[in-house]
């Protein structure tokens, strides 16, 4: 089909070849501009349809246990959700969880990647071991830590505690949120190491050498050369981790189920329990919207921070 249209346009323009090719190129350009549309439309639908449903549900009474009673209640669901004691707990647990894991993974990630960036025997194997936890699925992570490592009777930690003459700790009962932070950090530390380690490889060696000759100690070099060089990868680590950490779910679901009390209930788990355990769709939708707003506040700053650093180099 293309060849015939090509010939027609050739005859019309009186030239051979060139304008025909240009015709195809133009046609291709037209189609190409729209190649992004399917993705845009799908993502738009993915965002708008459920979100508008959530908004609608959040404004009506909607409990699966009492079907048919769906009258409009205004902001009552929001009021209930926000004033319940579980909300304050869920909010502070979410922030504590995200904040602590970010802090732990970035600080340890920088230190470890600086160490591993030096030359030593067996670096390849060390690298592989360091990044392995990233590939472990969250449910396995949670169960291995809960039953094999932190178990108060047969766990490895208990054995270590006993070895040093201390009383073994029942981690998930006595320090539940701390335990969750620990296992989530273990999962995400490799991600930070992986990114920062790669970034360090492009650090200017000559500059470091020059600084050393000028009498700069390793600490000076770390703070004035290494850390500024890592600013961009650190911002990427913070952005991606925040996206995933805000909705940590499986780790809590498989270990503590949000307990004891609300001590390990984050916003994600709270909404899940309201919707699928207590069947209160209206209330859960109000909570979902609050989570969306929270995430958007975070996104506003993060996308600005990282988006800028990503697009400016082009």
């Amino acid at each position: 089909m293309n060849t015939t249209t090509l010939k027609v346009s050739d005859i019309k323009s009186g030239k051979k070849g060139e304008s025909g090719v240009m015709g195809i190129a133009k046609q291709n350009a037209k189609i190409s501009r729209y190649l992004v549309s399917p993705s845009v439309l799908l993502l738009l639908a993915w965002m708008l349809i459920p979100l508008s449903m959530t908004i609608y549900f959040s404004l009506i009474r909607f409990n699966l246990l009492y079907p048919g009673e769906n009258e409009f209640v205004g902001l009552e669901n929001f009021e209930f959700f926000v004033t319940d004691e579980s909300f304050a707990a869920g909010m502070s647990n979410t922030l504590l969880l995200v904040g602590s894991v970010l802090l732990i993974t970035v600080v340890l990630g920088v230190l470890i990647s600086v160490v591993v960036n030096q030359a030593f025997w067996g670096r390849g194997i060390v690298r592989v071991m360091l990044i392995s936890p990233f590939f472990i699925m969250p449910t396995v992570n949670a169960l291995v830590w809960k039953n094999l490592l932190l178990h108060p009777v047969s766990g490895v930690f208990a054995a270590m505690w006993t070895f040093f003459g201390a009383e073994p700790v029942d981690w998930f009962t006595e320090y539940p949120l701390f335990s969750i932070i620990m296992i989530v950090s273990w999962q995400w530390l490799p991600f930070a190491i992986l990114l920062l380690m790669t970034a360090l490889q492009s650090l200017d060696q000559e500059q470091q050498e020059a600084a050393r000759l000028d009498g700069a100690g390793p600490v000076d070099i770390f703070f004035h050369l290494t850390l500024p060089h890592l600013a961009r990868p650190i911002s990427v680590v913070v952005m991606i981790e925040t996206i995933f950490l805000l909705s940590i779910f499986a780790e809590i679901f498989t270990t503590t189920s949000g307990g004891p009390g609300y001590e390990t209930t984050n916003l994600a788990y709270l909404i899940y329990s309201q919707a699928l355990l207590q069947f209160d769709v209206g209330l859960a939708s109000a909570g979902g919207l609050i989570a969306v707003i929270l995430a958007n506040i975070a996104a506003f700053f993060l996308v600005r921070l990282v988006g800028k650093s990503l697009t400016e180099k082009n």
Partner: protein
Amino acid sequence: MLSIKQGKQLNTVLIGLLAWGVALVIFFPIFWMILTSFKTEIDAFATPPQLFFTPTLENYTLVNERSDYLRFAWNSVVVSFGSTAIGMLLAIPAAYSMVFYETKRTKSILLWMLSTKMLPSVGVLVPIYLLFKNLSLLDTRTGLIIIYTLINLPIMIWMVYTYFKEIPKDVLEAARMDGATLFQEIWQVLLPMSKGGLASTVLLSLILSWNEAFWSLNLTASQAAPLTALIASYSSPEGLFWAKLSAVSTLACAPILIFGWISQKQLVRGLSFGAVK
């Protein structure tokens, strides 16, 4: 007194020891899980924990009998490969269009796509659950494929975008001048030139879908449940079962772990969205 050279050597040894120490601590949980999977249940529960024991394969055979491991594994395979394939089919044309036919809005579209990733899954859990219920998509592999494709699409587009960005435009123009159709241009010129980048995008998408555990736990029950859900079903303790738990966990993680080891270098560039070279 140590000479400078000796001092340097000592430094290298110390750094090596430190790095190995840290690596062993971080890797220990995985090592311990694999080790425990070869113990009998009695050895697995022994105090203090046993480092030396007579290894057994009985857990691996038992796991298969108890929970039909293969069906869950097959669900994981179908769902992660399915969503990755569809995701690539959408991401490649989208990225091509945004890189080679850039408009004023391209950058805002890219940032907007990334921001859809910020929409927390819990925020839309209820409507998706109800929609799926009405469309009979609950507990089906198709349903999970749809969800995984959508949640991974922004990241895939971003990654492919950064890889296409590195390809010189003249090469494609030359192909166009030679009369290549749009399809030929993408399939025969562009894709072979960005093989490495595309491979790492595929890998990342596979890893993310394989390990995804919010939607799989909430939207599947028995038919379409992937490995993440199988593992979660082991969360309620029923007597001595640490060794079996370890065996099933090892089986669930092994494919992706090996994948990850092979592709670690490729992955970094993709994960960092081009911010790290």
